[in-house]
């Protein structure tokens, strides 16, 4: 159970990082296209 919590924290962070990537891409699209 405890291990699942920490794995979930890791996966959750990377999910945020992927959303952040697309956020930057959206900003780039708005800036250049």
């Amino acid at each position, binding site marked *: 159970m*405890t291990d699942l919590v920490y794995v979930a924290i*890791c996966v959750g962070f990377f999910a945020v990082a*992927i959303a*952040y990537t697309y956020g*930057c*891409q959206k900003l780039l699209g708005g*800036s250049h296209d």
Partner: protein
Amino acid sequence: MTALATLQLLLFFGLLLLLTKPLGAYMARVFAGEKTLLHRALGGLERATYRLLGVDPEEDMKWTSYALAMLVFSLATLIFTYGALRLQGVLPLNPQGFGAKQMPADLAFNTAVSFTTNTNWQAYSPEVTVSYFSNMVALAIHNWASAAVGIAIAIALTRGFARKSASGIGNFWADVVRGTLYMLLPLCLVGAVIFLAMGVPQSFEPYSTVTTLEGGKQTIAFGAVASQEIIKQLGTNGGGIFNANSAHPFENPSPLSNFFTLVLIWSIPAAITHTFGKMVGNAKQGWALFGAMAALAIAGVVICTSAEQAGTPHLAAAHIDTAASALQAGGNMEGKEVRFGIASSALFATVTTGASCGAVNAMHDSFTPLGGLVPLFNMLTGEVIFGGVGAGLYGMLMFAILAVFIAGLMVGRTPEYIGKKIEKFEVQMAMLATLVLAASVLGFAALSSTIDLPKEGFWASLNTWLGSAYGAADTVYGAATGNLNNAGAHGFGEIFYAYASGTGNNGSAFAGITANTPWYNVTIGLAMLIGRFLMIIPLLAMAGALAKKGHVPASSGTFPTDTPTFAGLLVGVVLIVGALTYFPGLALGPVVEHFQMQALATH
């Protein structure tokens, strides 16, 4: 500074300068996909790796694909390491019988994140916590991979400047494989043999127990040290096999191995500035970055060495002779190895924190306030003083963007850098990367300095829930106050240093803080993730945006960025951004402590 310290500094920079051009040029060839002498021996292995991974190395990735590949790779290896650490009790190469008890869940999370992010912050004592397997497989895989990823990101950003009207910034998998096979592997093979020749052990035997001269029993820990020591330093990882890290005689047996270590730490970060110059078609651009880094580095070494050599008023008041002589290093020797003395300890502290290495050969907690301020400030700059492998270059390029932006504002022209117009998006991304680091360091340090978690209740129960190793009777709880070895300004400095080190992916510790608690393991773990990935992503976005642009021909209004003037401006921007962002923290910590020390106050 003593004459010996000056001589060592000159020798060190001379050697670094000699290495930069050939190693940098070699790296430029490797990442351009050109054939080198090593391709005959390792080309087959490279192709086999691509087949195994199922990737096409010729595929030119857009920046988003590059970032996603980096994130997927990092997450997969992070989960692997977490699992391997938790399961070390049932895995091989574990003669000491270490298991999950030594590596509870919160510590395994912190450690797995730490090595994945090239930080190598160690909230544990390695020799009583991790098995040989954990060291050599679960952790060492990141010593290679995180270094190769850092180099790959720097190369991708460089391609952004070098390419014209391109949609891609290279192939992540090819960059990581080539960096590992053609750079890290051969250098580590040679370096490990040199370490062995210097007396660093390499063994799978169980620890030895010996009888001391006084008749007591002492356990002597060792392991496969040489093979790990080389990638620890060359890859600017810094995680020790022993708790004393590079102050331990098995990791760093002599002043010669100490000097070799220093050169290893900065060799790739220095060389990659020349790689940058070569790839953008103007070597002087790389030398301008090298010059800015070298100026900051030399200033740091001089300040740190002078502060440590001067000693403290407390020593003077006790009538202790602190003058350097043939018989003693003099100055403030607290927390330093007598084998290395002041000069080699201060140089090491500056090098390891200028880079994102974090190996230590002295306890930074015992430095004088101003001596300790130098490693702290180095980390707060984002570690751009040569910096981590790859990380130093992409961090300095972030500052270069800000520098040309500021210069452009001064003269009222659209800024340009390496023939690319620097527009709104690039500045937004550079600022985002800067602010993410600042928010993490300052936010977590503020929280940890103010939150006083109760002994009973939520955090105590959460301790048990998170699987902490601590029992109910000796539960380590809360944040700052319960886990510091010093109160006042120095205590705050310990907290500030911890989050600067975590966010900067440095990994060195001020050593005055009990960091192996659920609070610190989780929050420093998050700081490391934020400092690594939330900084890299905007810089990759910037690479993608720059690659799409064409080159603007230089005109009479173009600010030249390959001159000492630009290097000076870059130094100014690094200092101003660092000082303005972190001055309140520095003022509350080492600056106050310095004045207290001058007044002979204890804290």
